[in-house]
């Protein structure tokens, strides 16, 4: 007796159905951009508290005008030069004695910042400044800090600061996390991000 085969289900339209679903998900997908520049806002201050006195030479003033022009220390500057200027300022290490900075490699100009712990970058923007420009300036200033941290981390621990941070977040990291955390903190303390933002001027 011949074996009777059961009739096969016609799967020819399966591809069509799958395509339909695929196209639906393709259209509705928005790969969310959830990365950005993280910052911490200063807490609200009481009115009476007097701001600490900072020496003029320890302040690096960056002004973004209403026309999106960049004024660094009262001189017009292109965005591309900002990173180097900020690094030169932070890395200067012009202090002597107590305030000397042994890991700075800058020009040691007595007219510029004493050491990275004292150096403050002051960012002033106008109310009319475009947000895109502001982010570009922020990005360059953060990049300046990151570059210096990378350099020190490379010298002390043989890998870049970004790599260290990535390792710290990595679940599969095999090294000693406690020590890594200390090292990260140490480098953060060596190059603290002192980025002060003044209230924008309205006119």
């Amino acid at each position, binding site marked *: 007796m011949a074996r009777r085969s059961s009739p096969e289900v016609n799967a020819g339209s399966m591809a069509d159905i799958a395509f339909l679903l695929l196209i639906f998900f393709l259209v509705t997908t928005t790969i969310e951009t959830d990365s950005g520049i993280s910052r911490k806002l200063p807490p609200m201050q009481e009115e009476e508290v007097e701001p600490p006195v900072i020496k003029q030479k320890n302040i690096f003033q960056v002004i973004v005008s209403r026309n999106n022009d960049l004024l660094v220390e009262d001189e017009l500057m292109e965005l591309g030069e900002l990173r180097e200027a900020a690094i030169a300022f932070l890395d200067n290490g012009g202090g002597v004695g107590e305030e000397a900075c042994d890991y700075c490699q800058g020009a040691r100009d007595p007219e510029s910042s004493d050491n990275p712990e004292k150096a403050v970058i002051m960012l002033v923007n106008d109310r*009319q400044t475009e947000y895109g420009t502001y982010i570009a300036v922020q990005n360059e200033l953060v990049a300046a800090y990151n570059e210096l941290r990378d350099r020190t981390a490379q010298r002390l621990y043989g890998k870049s600061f970004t790599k260290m941070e990535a390792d710290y977040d990595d679940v599969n990291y095999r090294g000693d996390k406690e020590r890594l955390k200390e090292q990260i903190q140490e480098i953060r303390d060596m190059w603290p991000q002192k980025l002060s933002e003044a209230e924008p001027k309205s006119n």
Partner: protein
Amino acid sequence: MAKFTKKKSSELPAVNTASLPDIVFMLLFFFMVATTMRETTLKVENTLPYADQVEKLDKKDLVMYIYAGKPSSRYRSNFGTEARIQLNDNFADVSEIQQFIYAEREAKREELVPFLTTALKVDEETNMGLVSDIKQELRKAEALKINYTTRTGKASQNLE
């Protein structure tokens, strides 16, 4: 012998498409898994600026989103072209931000509240005045951890 010669056909055999559904299903599953449905409908233009010194925001449930930008074209007739803030699904005023932060905090477990981050998704053409106002309100509400959400790319692209 005749049996064999009969089978030989001079035409090209059709390409076997039996595995096509499998391939398509594979793609389908990829997109299904990778898709995150937008929770809010954007009512403002939202072209984010570029930056390359970015950090990733991991825990999505610990992020509060504040959008700002010009109203999209179909809301222009009602809301004008001046840049506005969007909280959840509605346009909002600067003064409503504090309320929004408190409401978001209320919805989260207490031990998670210190880890809340505010993501600012601001259109690149917005004036800093509005952004500063938002920041000021966030300081008042003591939501100090912020993240300027950006696209990844050269920062100089913002100036073009």
